[in-house]
Structure formats: C-alpha cells, structure tokens
C-alpha cells in the first residue's frame, strides 16, 4: 500500500478599512492534515481540521478505500527539497499603526477617494511526504493590499482600486504609484471606436479559456485545442506557465498536491506559441495517455483534481513603454465578460486609462472590448511586461476591438 501525508498551516492577520480608517483586526490560524492511501488501483482519503494525527488519519483513509474510487498508484519517486522564506514582512504589533499611517498619507494624496476593503499579512507552511521517499516542504508569506476606491459623489459601489501583493512593503513606492493613478483618474480622455492595444492582467483573458487547457476535456475532443498538443498554434512570443516559483508566487508552494515539482517550478502550458502541456492530475494523465504537467490541487479531505497556482506569462519587453510605445488602453476593471463556445471573447470595461508611451494620460469612458481566442493568443498578442509599474505586476497587451459601452 502506497501512502501520502500532507500538512498545511495558514496564519493570517487582516485589517478591514472603512472610509480610510482601520476598524477591525482579524486573526485566523488554520491547520489541516491529509492522508491518502493507494491499493488495487483505488485511492482512500482522510483529512482533518487542526493538528493531524497521522496514524488515525491513515486508518480512516484505509477505510475509505472501500468507496472504490479509481486512482493510479503512481507516486513521485525519492526527492528531498525545501524552500523557506520565513522573513517577517512586518511585525504583527506594528501592523495596525504602520498601515493606518500609510492610509492617512494615501488619503491626503487622494482626497477625493473614499477607500475601503482589506490589507492582509499571510503566512503559510506546507509539508508533503510519500512512501516512495519524497519529502518536500515550503513556507513563505506575503502582504496583500486590496483597496477599493469610490470617487466621492459618483454613487457607484466603487470606481477603481489600488492593489499590491508582495513581500517588500515600500510605502513610498506604493504611494507614488497610487498617486499617479489618482491623478490620471481625474483627467478625462476619449478615443474613437476601433482596434487598439489593450493592456491588462492576462488572467482576464486566459482564465476565460482555461477550460480548453484541461486534460480530460482535451482528450474527450471538447476543447478548441483537442488533438493539437505539440503544435504551434499561437504567437512565437507567447509562453504561458503555472507559477509555483517562490521567487514570484509569494506565499505559494513549489510542488503540486501530488508532490510534483516542475522545471523552474513553473509547469509550462504554452511555450513560444507551441501547446506544450495540459492541466492534469496523475489520474487524468494516466487515463488519457497525456504527460502529467504537475498541476493538481486538492481539498484537505479530497481526491486530487485540476488546479492552477498563479498565471505567469514570460516577459517580452522590459517596460510598458517598450511594450506599447504609442497609444494604448490600460484596463483597470473589467467585470462580467465571457466567451462563446467557438471562442469569441467580449467584456465590458468599467474602468480604463488611456496610455501614451507607457504613461497614464487620463480616464476613458466605459468601453466594450472583444477578440477571438486564436487571434488573441496569435496575431493579436503583443507581449508581456513584468514589474512595471510595481514589482510583481504582470501585464500583457493584446490588439482588440474597442467600442464605447
């Protein structure tokens, strides 16, 4: 009988912000334990909330074998690896005063904005062991600033937002960038309907098509990509990965739920336009004869399923100015879009800036943008830039049809 043991601990401190003032402090600690056992082509899973008793969970997992859930006994082989980045981002005792001071200064710089939502400090630890001798562990943390901004008097739920996720909190840098966005917000801009470079967090588009990258849908012929693994389908410039690298996916885990470790800690789906991999678990890979990419996720008491850590597109330019040297649209909020079964994507854009030479010029009216799957990732893919305007940011540019809403 083969066996896996997993333990995960998450510890978070979260501040709620209302009208620029902190009004609550929340502490959450959550530990979970998992044992999976494999015998006669089946899996048995047991999990617990709280400190795990491995022997007790093992017995329960053995009992769960009776459910008869098919799963291949293909555990990863011997490997010992760890990645720990336990440096304190900010002492917890300083969290409230430091962030209230930051909010006060932001409020002075942006007096027409009402600011609310959350600021969090999050730390996590993960441990994976199996009966084949694999032993992996990692830990890390991140700070997440997620503020929504109401333009006073607009009557809207929110008009824009300030966000950052990382490990090196630099108040001056963040305040300067947020002020740049604030100033541009109050400069009216306009453009004629047509085709423009649209700069956006690539997840807005990629995740609308991610089901076409799921291994079992691919194998069933229900994906737009079915039968095309290994073919060059997209722009030479396009490389899409699942980021599990602790250097960029702060607080994440470098291995998947089945202990798989990808080269560079980034399983690759598309490389230089070639479809290189599909989202799989060991089960879907085995069932459909696909290579296992190592992108499994699992609830603490669940059978592994398809997961996706954090989207990563390789950089093709060093700066926004180099990426889109002329006129472009920077999408700040685009909520509610979707794609038709044949791959036509459309979304309203509730908040966008006009950019010229990589600099914010002004705020555009509500827009509607659209494009087609193979074009967006093919001839209409312009490229990707990292760490501009803030460290940790990934922005991609696509040539798209743009109309006023």
């Amino acid at each position, binding site marked *: 009988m083969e066996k896996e043991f997993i333990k995960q601990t998450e510890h978070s401190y979260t501040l*709620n912000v*209302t*009208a620029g003032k902190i*009004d*609550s*402090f*929340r*502490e*959450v*600690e*959550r*530990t979970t334990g998992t044992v999976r056992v494999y015998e006669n082509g089946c899996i048995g*899973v047991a999990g617990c*909330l709280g400190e795990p008793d491995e022997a007790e969970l093992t017995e329960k997992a053995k009992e*769960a074998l009776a*459910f*008869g*859930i098919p799963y291949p006994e293909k555990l990863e082989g011997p490997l010992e690896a760890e990645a720990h980045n336990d440096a304190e981002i900010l002492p917890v005792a300083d969290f409230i005063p430091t962030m209230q001071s930051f909010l006060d200064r932001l409020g002075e710089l942006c007096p027409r904005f009402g*600011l*609310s*939502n*959350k600021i969090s400090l999050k730390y996590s630890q993960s441990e994976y062991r199996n009966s084949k001798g694999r032993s992996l562990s990692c830990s890390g943390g991140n700070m997440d600033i*997620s503020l929504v901004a*109401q333009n*006073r*008097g*607009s*009557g*809207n*739920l*929110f008009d824009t937002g300030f966000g950052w996720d990382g490990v090196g909190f630099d108040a001056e840098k963040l305040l300067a960038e947020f002020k740049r966005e604030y100033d541009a917000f109050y400069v009216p801009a306009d453009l004629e309907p047509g085709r423009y470079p649209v700069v956006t967090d690539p997840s807005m588009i990629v995740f609308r098509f991610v089901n076409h990258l799921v291994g*079992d*849908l691919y194998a*069933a*012929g*229900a994906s*737009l990509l*079915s039968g095309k693994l290994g073919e060059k389908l997209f722009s030479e410039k396009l490389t899409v990965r699942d980021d599990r690298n602790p250097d960029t996916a702060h607080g994440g885990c470098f291995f998947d739920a089945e202990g798989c470790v990808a080269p560079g800690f980034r399983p690759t789906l598309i490389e230089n336009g070639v479809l290189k991999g599909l989202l799989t678990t060991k089960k879907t890979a085995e069932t459909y004869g696909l290579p296992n990419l190592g992108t499994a996720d699992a609830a603490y*008491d*669940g*059978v592994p*399923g398809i997961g996706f850590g954090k989207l990563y597109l390789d950089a093709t330019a060093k700066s926004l100015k180099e990426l889109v040297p002329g006129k472009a649209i920077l999408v700040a*909020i685009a*909520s*509610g*879009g*979707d*794609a*038709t*079964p*044949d791959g*036509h994507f*459309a*979304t*309203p854009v*509730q908040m966008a800036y006009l950019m010229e030479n990589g600099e914010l010029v002004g705020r555009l009216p*509500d827009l*509607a943008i*659209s494009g087609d799957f193979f074009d967006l990732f093919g001839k209409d893919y312009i490229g990707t830039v990292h760490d501009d305007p803030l460290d940790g940011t990934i922005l991609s540019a696509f040539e798209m049809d743009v109309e006023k*809403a």
Partner: protein
Amino acid sequence: MLQFRDGFYADVRTEDRFRTIIQYKAGVLEELKTRREQQAFLRVYDGKLWYYASVTDVKHLQKTLDGLYGAATANPAILDDPIVRRFERNVDRIETFGDCSVRDIPLRNKQELLLSYLPIVTEDDCVKMAQGIYVDRNSRFRFCSSLGADIEYDYQTCGLRFDMNMAEGEKKFTGSWQTGCTRFDELTGLETEIREAAKESADYLRNSVPVEAGKYPVVLSPIAAGVFAHESFGHKSESDFMLSDDSMKEEWQLGKTVGSPILSIAESGCVPGCGFVPYDDEGTKARKNYLIRNGVLAGRLHSAQTAAALDEGLTGNARAIDCNFEPIVRMTTTWIEGGDLTFDELIAPIEKGYFIKTINHGSGMSTFTIAPSLAYEIQDGKLGRPVQISVISGNVFETLGLIDGLTKDVEMLSFVTGGCGKMEQHPLPVGFGGPYVRVSEMNVQ
C-alpha cells in the same frame, strides 16, 4: 457557558457543518466523501475597533475570547455605543430539518440517486464527457452575545448538477442543468426534466448561430431576471458601500425614483431554499425588505454597523460565508415581483429581440453584465433559432427604467454549486427569483 466581561460587546458564532460530495466524470467515480467541520468565529468590540478570531478548537472558546478581550480596551459606555444599541437580543431555537436531515440519509442512497440519472445525460452522441455531482449540506448554528442573545437554528440544502461537454465537428458547447432544494426526496423523479435539458443543449450545439451584436429588446427568464436583480441592484443596496462617501446619503435617498413604475425588488432571509437565514450572523431576525417598490427606492440592506452609521433599522443581512470570516452586508434571497402578462403576451410585441433562458454568470457595477448560456432569437413575437451570445450588458439605472413587461408567475430558484462573491468572501449561498422580464433595450454582444 461563556463568561462575557463588562465594558465590551462580544458575540460568538459556532457552526457544525456536515457536507456530502459525490462526483462522477465520464462514468467514473471521482469523489465520494462526507465532511464534518466545527468552527467558531468570535468578535469583541470596544467602541473603537473590532477584534476577531476564527478557531477550529471549539472546546476552548473562553481562552480565545479572553485573548480578544486582552487586545481590546474596556469602555464603560459600550452599551451606549450606537452599534451596540442596535443589536437584537433574540432567544430562539428553530429546528426545520430534524425529521429529514441529510446527515441521516445513507451515503449509498445518495450515490444511487446520482447514478440513476447519469445515463440520461449521455444519451446523445454529441456528449463527449459528462460530469454529475451530488452535494448536500446540513448546518447547525448557534449564536450567543454578551447582551443575552442565544439562538440556535439549522440550515439544509441538497442538489444535483450535470455538465455535458458536447462536440460535433468544430462545434463545441458545454450544457448544464442543476437544481437545489432542502429535502432529499425532492431530488427524485427528475428524469424527464434532465432529459429535456440534455436534448435542448444538443440542439443548441447543432443549430445555434452567432448573434448580430447590437441593441435589442431582451426577455429574461426567471433565473436571468433574478441574477439581474441581484447583480444590478441588490449589490447596490448593500449599504456598507455607503460608509466611505458621505455624499452617498443624498445620492441614495429613500423615495427617489430608480426604475420603471412596474418594478419591485424584494429581499428576505425567510424564503425557504439556499438563501434561508432566519437569523443573520449578528443575531438579527430575518424580515422582508423592499429595495425598490413601484420604481421607487424603498430600502437597503444592513448590518448593525451600517444601520448605526445611516441611522436606519436592522434588516437581517449581516452574513459570513463560514466561521473563517466576519459578517458583512450580504443578500439572502432576492427577487423581482410579478406583473400581469403571460409569456406569449410578453414576447408578442417584439419584432426582433432575444430571450435569455439560462446563464453562466453575472456581475454588476455601474454596468451590469449577464453571460448567457442558452439564448434564443425572438422574431415577430415568436421564439426562433438558438443564438450564441457572449454577454448582455447595460447601465444599471437606464436598464431598470427600461423594464416594460412582467409575467404574472414568479419562480424562486436555489442552487447548490457556485454562489455570490463579495471581495474576499465567496461563495455565499443566495436565492434568486422573478417572473419573465422584458427590457425594451439592452446591449447584446
């Protein structure tokens, strides 16, 4: 028995949650589990700051509570605080599902029910992969406060969902069907309904045509109308968004005309289904609240904090998705009230327009959106071909004013997968409903 201290407000919410998940994909068992979790969320308020803790160790709540007291500062005038003064002190015990708890139904029965339906969704050759899920949940809540509130109630949902990944040549489509209810026996005898849904999806795959983008009259089904009400106006009625901007009080004055005179949107935690919340997570008793009545802004949704800030009454809408989070202002069940037309009368005057039958998702800010799944042309007052639409959208207030027809009957719907998302808290079970709703113009893409 928890010991509360003078000089503070405090409350403790505990949940004992039981869940079952059974999932088949391509005819193979993928998941089969029951889960029982006990968690607690504790709050202490000193008049300046709230201190929260979430714990799984429900046997030592006093220790956690004392830790929160240690972080806060005693306030002799806490009982005069405008938030604390609003809290209700209800003492109640409600057991709705004691005679039909899904905890007592053998796992084998649940699995056999799901298995009995699976062959139906793969009858058509175009289905390349089908997935079926059975989900249930039974929760026992308890809420106690330093003011003497002591409430216990139970909550239950169960349901089925089927997804059919279809392909024929270059045509692809994912059809789906789901239902949610509160009693397991309501899930039997659904063969005809599921078969019809599978057939309709196969027809959509084969015969749907791309939409001609533009502005058209649109008819929304009860589910589309319910999601529209939730997204377009329900979120705007959550009054926490009014706290960061003083001008909001003027902008959102009760009595202001915000929609067509035939439009009324109501909200209540009393409605049976997945939005059933007899007491919210601050111990406030549920009640029916009108958000819009005959086109006029009639009310909004509150927690104690927002009710105090806006000097209005409680509504029973402070909710958290689970004991990892604090309660915030959320919806329960939201619906558009019915009108006076039949469906045929509703579509009769439309020369060219679209009928949105089922949806994938919706969202709402200044512009709301609905991403349809099954949609049809309306041509010369009759339903026509199936059409592919990415998204329908519109300015919220313009669209609320363009509602010009409602059918008589209102359908209330519950679901057991997905739910409402608000910032970090997703998914929250909510109910939807409405009649068939005609809007004279919407943007169709």
